[in-house]
């Protein structure tokens, strides 16, 4: 049996490991489209800050890992899939056959249709190659404009700011991380960034980018609200979309992401999908969507591999969750952080000290949460949500004091108190 995995990000690499564990004799081929050993995008910020070298971003610390586990690693771009022949076409013109195929091609950055954005010197911050470029260009005092303050935008911001540049952010939404945090929280993060010397413009967008030959800074950026900003370097962090181009004509159905069922199977037999490229099951809603986060990618990878290995494993759904460090301010959000209809919530705000905790309930079950400044026992938020623990009387206690979270968890989820 030959398993082929396209994509050497976390989803693909986790899948390769599980496959090896479950299928000692099978052949495993892992294909990555970038000229690097399999690495983790998530670690890029830490590479940028200088906390780790490039090797520190690798998904496996042991250089011999793949060899040891008899996983063949191939650096190549897959251009086409031919399910009839059970074959992949590579950019080099070569082909490779498979018995079972996992699509784990992740996502790639997209840019808004703004005049001037096609300039090749405007970079994203998605790959190691991008990171190298940014590291080279960011010097103390360099004027950097970052488009987008979403989740990834906020994470890289810290790294970029740490290089000593003069950083300006332009975000379309009315706050920072609009897709992960509510107004209160998103605005607190914004205020925090401003306190740390970052200029943040929200509720506006870049309408035009002019590149000036004779003048420094090189770029003149026009915004919708009529401002003109200058920058030596523009970083676009304006969202990502699943990488699906190579699926044209394959019969693998997509709709803003590869469609899969609860066994991670695509519409085509023996082809599975996992990670940022797949519309996987969401724990909270039961629907299928692209979550584009690391824990989900690894969960997908693991479950897909089990199914590929013949261990029938349904995916009950991944919980959408994020943890974010924005220039030292730690925030996290879980599940239905925006609340649910007919639900109930608890909220605690300490604006001055940038602390926030909001819990969302449906009946007496926690279904979502947002936290600012919480670093201890954060995981129980996930635990409570995902086990759908009935909080009983603890719900009222949490409503009057949400910091009793850990006690509620121990009492109800762990039955650690007397009845």
């Amino acid at each position, binding site marked *: 049996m030959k398993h082929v995995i396209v994509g050497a990000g976390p989803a693909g690499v986790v899948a390769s490991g599980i496959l090896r564990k479950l299928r000692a004799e099978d052949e495993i081929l892992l294909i990555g489209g970038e000229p690097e050993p399999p690495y983790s995008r998530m670690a890029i910020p830490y590479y940028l800050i200088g906390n780790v070298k490039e090797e520190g971003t690798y998904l496996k610390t042991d250089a011999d890992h793949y060899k040891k586990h008899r996983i063949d690693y191939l650096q190549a771009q897959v251009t086409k899939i031919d399910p009839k022949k059970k074959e992949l076409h590579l950019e080099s013109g070569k082909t490779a056959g498979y018995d079972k195929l996992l699509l784990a091609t992740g996502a790639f950055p997209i840019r808004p249709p703004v005049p001037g954005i096609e300039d090749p010197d405007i970079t994203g911050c998605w790959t190691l190659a991008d990171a190298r470029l940014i590291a080279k260009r960011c010097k103390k005092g360099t004027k950097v404009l970052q488009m987008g303050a979403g989740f990834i935008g906020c994470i890289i911001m810290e790294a970029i700011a740490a290089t000593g540049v003069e950083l300006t952010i332009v975000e379309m939404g009315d706050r920072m991380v609009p897709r992960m945090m509510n107004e209160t929280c998103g605005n607190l993060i914004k205020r925090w960034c401003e306190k740390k010397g970052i200029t943040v413009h929200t509720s506006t967008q870049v309408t035009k980018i002019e590149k000036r030959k004779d003048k420094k800074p090189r770029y003149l950026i026009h915004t919708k609200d009529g401002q003109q900003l200058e920058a030596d370097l523009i970083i676009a962090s304006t969202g990502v979309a699943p990488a699906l181009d190579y699926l044209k004509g394959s019969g693998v159905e997509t709709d803003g992401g590869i469609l899969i069922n609860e066994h991670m199977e695509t519409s085509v037999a023996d082809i599975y999908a996992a990670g940022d490229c797949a519309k996987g099951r969401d724990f909270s809603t039961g629907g299928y969507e692209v979550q584009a986060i690391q824990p989900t990618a690894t969960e997908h990878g693991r479950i897909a591999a089990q199914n590929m290995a013949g261990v029938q494993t349904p995916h009950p759904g991944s919980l959408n969750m994020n943890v974010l460090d924005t220039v030292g301010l730690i925030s996290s959000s879980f599940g239905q952080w925006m609340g649910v209809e007919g639900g109930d919530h608890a909220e*605690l705000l300490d604006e001055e*000290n940038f*602390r926030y*905790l909001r819990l969302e309930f449906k009946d007496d079950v926690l279904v979502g949460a947002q936290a600012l400044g919480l670093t201890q026992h954060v995981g129980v938020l996930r635990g409570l949500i995902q086990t759908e623990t009935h909080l009983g009387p603890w719900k009222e206690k949490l409503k009057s*004091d949400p*910091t*009793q979270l850990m006690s509620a968890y121990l009492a109800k989820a762990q039955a650690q108190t007397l009845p």
Partner: protein
Amino acid sequence: MTWHRKILRVNLTKGTCETEPLNMEWAKLYLGSRGLASKYLYEEIDPKVDPIAPDNKLILATGPLTGTSASTSGRYVAVTKGALTGAIACSNSGGFFGAELKFAGYDMLILEGRAKEPVYLMINDDDVRILPADKLWGKSVWETEEWIKKTHQDPLIRVASIGVAGETGSKYACIVNDLHRAAGRSGVGTVMGSKNLKAVAVRGTTGVKVENPREFMQVAQATKTDLKESAFTNGLTQYGTQGVTSVINATGIYPTRNHQQVQFEGADKIGGEAMFEVRETDGRTNMVRNSACFGCTIACGRVSVIDPNHFSVKDKPQYHNASGGLEYESSWAMGGDCGIDDLEALTYANFICNEQGMDTISFGASLAAAMELYERGYITDKETGGLKLKFGSAEALVEAVELAGKGEGFGKDLGLGSKLLCEKYGHPEVAMTVKGQEFAAYDPRGAQGMSLAYATSNRGACHLRGYTIAVEIFGVGTKLDPLTTEGKAEITKLAQDTTSAVDSTGLCMFPNFAWTLDQYQQLVQADSEGDWSMEKMMELGERVWNLERLFNNKAGLTTADDTLPKRLLETPAETGVGKGLVALLDKMLPEYYELRGWTPDGQPSNDTIKRLNV
């Protein structure tokens, strides 16, 4: 190591928070906690200052062993000029606050001045802020702790605060930390209240290192084993301090009804064993479990639950949960001394004392004095506002504690403490106090050493300034005849000096039932730089005692204050070991002064001062 070598000085008048290096010269002489804080107080304030004036200072201090893995390392002291006594006050408390203060990086916190408006202090390691307490003023200790933790979104913040008693000027208000641990005596909470300081909240993450880790860990382990193997400390684990009730009562040194008797017929109903008796009404016991202060391997603390059917809490579900239970002195003061044998009522009164920040001993004894005034007709319903202050009345206790906690009605009078209360109503002889402070639960007529210990205690009547009971009654180490005066001056001095040394380490006194000063010494030596031999430790104790004495003398106290109430000096005990005896203080006092190297008028001689380098 050992000391962080750092002090936090907060001036509430100016609104400043500054750190400064610890005076290491003084640290080498006074070690820490009680000794070192007393030295700072002695040097920094005029002993004649009015205790509740802004010029008085309040020092919260840890010791070198606070926050280490030595057993009982959770303690801190509150040192100030006592509002109840006008003498130097040093109240010691366990719980977790002290260790947390140390973990925040400070050996000591000096609080000066008076804030214009109520404030609380929030210490997050280096981040120290004086914050408005307008939302907290008028709130209980329990509400205050909850509010602070919630507002700062950190359940691990430790809080030391005053209740309404401390705000309304009760003379024996205490500082309560961790809900039910108190720096109880002498009115240290009154001083805090006079500064408009509602609470000190701390979260510390810097940790504590010791000088000789390897040796320290060995000694810490060995000394913990000593505690584990001692019958005395095991008794504390099992019954808490309450375990002594029956012995003390049987011996006949259990002051009853404001020291009118020395044995209480209802003692067994309110002692350590009684707390384990299954109640008919709800099938539970008063005692829920024992609990420990930070780092303590004894865990003498009581956690209690009041019978929900009991009249005191019937319509008050907020008191149906478990909370800090009775300790011996509290059970005695509010129980035996008031002739009350209702365990549930006592537990309730104890809860309220914790909640509103009152010293249980002084409150209980003041109520006992009021009861005597009432029964003798010196005060009537008119003065008490209708309170029927009959000895034995649990109803009266429950009402009185609520009023005193809030400083309302007759509670205001009770808050004066026995001395001022009895003076107010023209019968000072009814007040059972020394230097304005109420007695603890041992009648000195049947334990003569205590006569001297009480009379000469630097903070007023107190059992923790020289617990001669240990040798006179329990025979810890040696056993002396409790009825004679022979050797008592010496043993009192020894107990006082030893305790002063122990109190300067940052550990609790209770291990002393299983240890001698040796174990403390070994721990200090391994923990701290410098020479801390036994000789030095004894010298330290004596030095601290003399320093406190000097403070008091300068504050205007004289030999005339080294005395006991007439009742103890002149009326013989009716029953018990001391039957027919009075407190034979006069026989011991001169000898004591001489042993101390003091002049006959109670002044440390120049030679003594020089010898001890005070």
